[in-house]
């Protein structure tokens, strides 16, 4: 039987996944990102809005995002966009979460999923 990696924290990677997915469509600044997450999740995912910035900074340092300062309507803002490395990271995270969500759904319905949780 093949050894499988444990998933110590189900919420690990969720903020990164959502941010990368949103920014893949277009560049945004922090406030826009948070509002997009709120509206697209139907207000299900709600947290202190300011906590998005440490995640953005970490993704930028990891090379998944790049930022640039842009002045719009007289206000200078930091806009974030996804890099090629960020797109690859998004693909990996999305696959993991798709499998995880499918596995959880199967367990909730009482069945057995084809793939174990990775």
């Amino acid at each position, binding site marked *: 039987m093949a050894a499988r990696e444990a998933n110590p924290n189900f919420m690990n990677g969720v903020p990164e996944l959502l941010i990368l997915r949103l920014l893949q469509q277009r560049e945004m600044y*922090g406030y826009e990102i948070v509002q997009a997450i709120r509206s697209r999740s139907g207000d299900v995912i709600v*947290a*202190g809005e*300011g*906590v998005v*910035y*440490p995640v953005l*900074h*970490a993704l930028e340092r990891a090379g998944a995002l790049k930022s640039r300062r842009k002045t719009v309507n007289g206000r200078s803002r930091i806009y974030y966009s996804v890099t090629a490395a960020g797109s690859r990271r998004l693909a990996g995270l999305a696959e993991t979460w798709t499998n995880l969500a499918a596995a959880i759904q199967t367990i909730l319905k009482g069945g057995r999923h084809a793939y174990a949780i990775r």
Partner: protein
Amino acid sequence: MPTPFDELRERLLRAGVAPRHVRRYLAELADHLADLTNEELHAGRGRADADSAALVRLGTMEELAQAMISRRDCQSWCARAPWAMFSLAPLFSLAAAYFGAAFYLWCGWNLFLSEADTPFGVHLQPIYGIANLYFQAGKFFYIVAPFLAGWGIAILAARQRLKAIWPITAMLLIAWMGGTAQIQASRSGVSGLVHIRIHCFAFGASGQAVFESLGRILAIFTITALPWVIWRIQMARSSTTAGPSRA
């Protein structure tokens, strides 16, 4: 007047988050807060209600602080390895400065006093003009190097809100190294090659030499530590008068 993020700034810096990350984080939070306040105002709230609703939506200070503090890659080197930043780094930087001063002296000796056995003391031909300016500049750099190193440490410690033990340790080491540093220059009689040596940390053999070294150590330590001590006192006073600014 305290801003909504003064307390957060202090907390992040004390937790070891690098000042550049703190600056950017707070700037983005301030922008975000302005956007939230505008949104609440457009929704029909009054100014005071909009301000407080925006602060609630932004997150509690605990949430905002923990989100940044938990990122270890945002920690400064002063927080990650203070023993290196405040013991090894100042000594190496002062040693590098003294090495530069010795090299500068060696160049000047060869350039302006190529016949002299030593660049120090009274020479047969008095030094004027550019040569005099050159050696005075070198002497000035040699004297101020420990002060610059000490003040650099003070700035680092102040920016990171470090406990007193680290900057004081660093300033004592710098004062000891700077107060006991001695440059010796001589020319080999046979080959004519010049030799420059720098001795540090050793006190002189005579009582007067020890006394002079201790005096220099005390002077360097006092002058480098004084601005930092004054800053600490002012910070302590302002924190007691301002009180907490962000719930």
